[in-house]
């Protein structure tokens, strides 16, 4: 039984060391931004159609581009969590349109490692119709999940 007493020390010390090590902050491997996921469609055929070129920036912030890419579908549109609305310029195949979103914002915890982000609930967007024909909302909840939120027919 003396061995019994002695042997209960060693595992305890080892496990304490392991626990101490496990308390260090972990890394975040999850999506931390809740984007509006916008899928582009050809308005004539209602078939998915990636624009040949797409540029995107915030209204009045044309020197700070969100996108300048070709053949991108879906596009990820960031919303401004500090206000309840924001306006973006979408240049689709060289033609500019503005899209304005109004929304409510809530704080959401992703995980212990990734911390907090903002989720939104959007209303129907207001947009110009230079090249865009219609925008339909398929899911009003803007989260970090990979799911379509709006369809842009152009």
């Amino acid at each position: 039984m003396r061995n019994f007493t002695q042997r209960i020390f060693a595992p305890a010390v080892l496990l304490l060391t392991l626990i101490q090590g496990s308390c260090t902050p972990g890394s975040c491997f999850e999506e931390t931004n809740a984007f509006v996921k916008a899928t582009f469609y050809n308005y004539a055929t209602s078939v998915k159609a990636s624009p040949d070129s797409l540029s995107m920036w915030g209204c009045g912030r044309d020197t700070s581009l969100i996108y300048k890419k070709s053949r991108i579908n879906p596009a990820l549109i960031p919303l401004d969590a500090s206000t309840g609305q924001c306006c973006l310029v979408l240049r689709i195949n060289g033609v500019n349109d503005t899209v304005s979103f109004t929304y409510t914002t809530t704080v959401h915890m992703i995980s212990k490692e990734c911390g907090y982000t903002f989720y939104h609930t959007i209303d129907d967007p207001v947009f110009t119709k230079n090249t865009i024909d219609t925008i339909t909302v398929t899911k009003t909840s803007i989260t970090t999940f990979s799911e379509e939120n709006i369809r842009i027919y152009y």
Partner: protein
Amino acid sequence: MRKISVYIISLLLASTISAYGQEEAQPVPDSVDVDLRIRAGLEVAGPVIYFTDRNSMNLEGFAALDINEKISAYAGGGYSDFLYSQYNYEFTTKGPFFKAGADFNFLRPEMAEGKYWAGAGVRYGLSLFTFETTSFSHDNYWGRVSSALPAKTNWAHYLEVAGGFRAELFNNFSIGWLISVRKMIYTGADKAYRPVYYPGYGSSTGTLSFGISYYLSWSIPYKKIRVQIKPEPVEEEEDEEAEPGTSTDFSNIGRQGLGR
């Protein structure tokens, strides 16, 4: 010289026989006296960790009452104060917690001697916690948004299964450790704003929470009981040399179909 040698040999033989006779004379006990105890203990790993990590304080103690030589009633409680800082937020949670359940000693009474314990415990845990996100920030195209979330108080309910060892170091004073697995039943907190740590339970990451506790405990006997010792089962020697089909035991013939 020869007489001396004979005398020494005689003495040795006599002592050996005497010793053998003493061993033989000891009757195998059919029962053993066991002290039932009231026990109180403190968890010491928490304070030790606090000296190396000031962000995590856990104070915990327990009281236990032996119901019989195998089962003890357990009641414990403590207080946790936890601070967690990640790159974009800082979180605190603190509050008391309470546990109640039973411990089961797997050692045989004659082996445990009232001093040793190797077994498992099952507990129901209750955590009353106040948590707060004192600051967080989020960056995207539009810039950085910094904010904080107000303090909230909730109850959490969980189950705990713990296994480990305890041994008496000296009179009535024991040490031991337990490895615990905990399962949250109900957090009471909103999924969008929930604690990353619950007092008494641990980290909220994952479906289970694991922990180790290292206890110092003091006990006093309050009752002595006599426990019958079950005789060791005598293993019957099997005739390993006998090959299948060559057994000469015909006693089972004719009984094989009876169980159907």
